[in-house]
């Protein structure tokens, strides 16, 4: 499925803003993403499998808070950085 990558994580994807990953849950998709782009998952997800404080993940038009959500092949995963800075 399609995964949209925010600017601050594109150093992992060769600057691609859109990449492919497979899995039947968000956890599996992120694991596959990490296999393709080593290290990217830990920058978004902590060691307790929590989405980091300033990262937002959407599936299609819904923001998700857990990695256990089921996904279909036509779903689109969109990763954002929260609007904060300084």
């Amino acid at each position, binding site marked *: 499925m399609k995964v949209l990558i925010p600017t601050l994580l594109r150093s992992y994807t060769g600057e691609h803003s859109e990449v492919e990953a497979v899995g039947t849950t968000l956890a599996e998709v992120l694991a596959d993403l990490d296999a393709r782009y080593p*290290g990217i998952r830990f920058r978004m997800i902590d060691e*307790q499998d929590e989405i980091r404080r*300033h990262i937002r993940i959407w599936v299609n038009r819904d923001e998700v808070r857990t990695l256990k959500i089921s996904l279909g092949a036509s779903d689109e995963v969109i990763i954002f950085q929260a609007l904060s*800075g300084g």
Partner: protein
Amino acid sequence: MNGDQTPKSSSPKPATGAVALLIATRKGAFILRSDKARRTWRIVGPKFFGHIVHHMVLDSRPNARGGRTLLAATSTGHLGPTMSRSYDLGKTWREAARPPAFAKAAEGQKGRAVGHTFWLTPGHASESGTWYAGTSPQGLFRSEDDGDTWISVSGFNDNPMYTNWAGGEQDGTPGGPMLHSINVDPRNPRHLYIAMSSGGVFESGDSGASWKPLNAGVLADFRPDKYPEYGQDAHCVRLHPAAPDVLYQQNHCGIYRLERPGVKWQRVGENMPKKIGDIGFPVVLHPRDPATLWVFPMDGGTVWPRTSPGGKPASYVSRNSGKTWRRQDSGLPESQGWFTVKRQAMSADTHDPVGVYFGTTSGEIWASRNEGGNWVCVARHLPEIYAVEAVELAR
């Protein structure tokens, strides 16, 4: 305590070559390189532009490639922490395969997550490729493959006393509670010291499998029990590399000295001028003389402004283990100099005379070629400086 009783050191030969300052800032890393005379400086960077660089440390031991490994602990405002290493003094970097991370908690239990790696220390000289890392919240991690993968030092991180020792999130600094000042005894790789803000100083004699507090004599004036077994706020603890029974500590509540096998710290900061006080963040040791140390006092009064007292920045040096102190402000602003120098942002080289260096949160690097006798600003307009490590490029 007097000069005659100071343990003798096995002094290394002074360095004579160029020096590099490894500068970690809130917006990237910089390397400031000197000529052999340490008179002119050239800056390179930023590396990791826009990333928060918490600490950057060059291993003094040769790595498996025959070179020296440079480690950088980084994060960003949005992303989780990571670690990178360089084999060419920062020209190219490779990200760690497994940065420090706590063990995953059992289902239904709340676990800890590393916010950032705050402190890096190379392991013992006999253990090539080993490193230690201290994190926020307080955690101790070890790498045995030159910083590529990190394992939790369970004897500390999962110790039944961990919560008592480390406290909660409210017990840390504004940047979060942190584990720092990892010191490895050069005589024994199994003998370790660590410190926490807050929590105090702890010692292990078995490579981190077990720990005991080492805080007797250290004030904690922010607690109802003023001299607790643990819970003090150690800002920076240094073990003298050539006289490893001698430790110095800059604490939230003063400057202390401990000589092992003694267990009670002596508040040598009581000998500082009363109008200056003995509050600050870094403590820097002379590479050869265990009786000489530098501090950079901060205003610890009222709401803890943590700036140079009276807006008149100065280092203070003691040549007799803290018995007396001398002010060093030549070259520094005479007024309206509201410097803040963080605990990792002051260090010394190994020349003779020793070069002493510090960085400010307002982005200036100051250098002294004569052990603090005169200060010169050698870089300015950098981002907020977190750490300055002086390293020798050649001997």
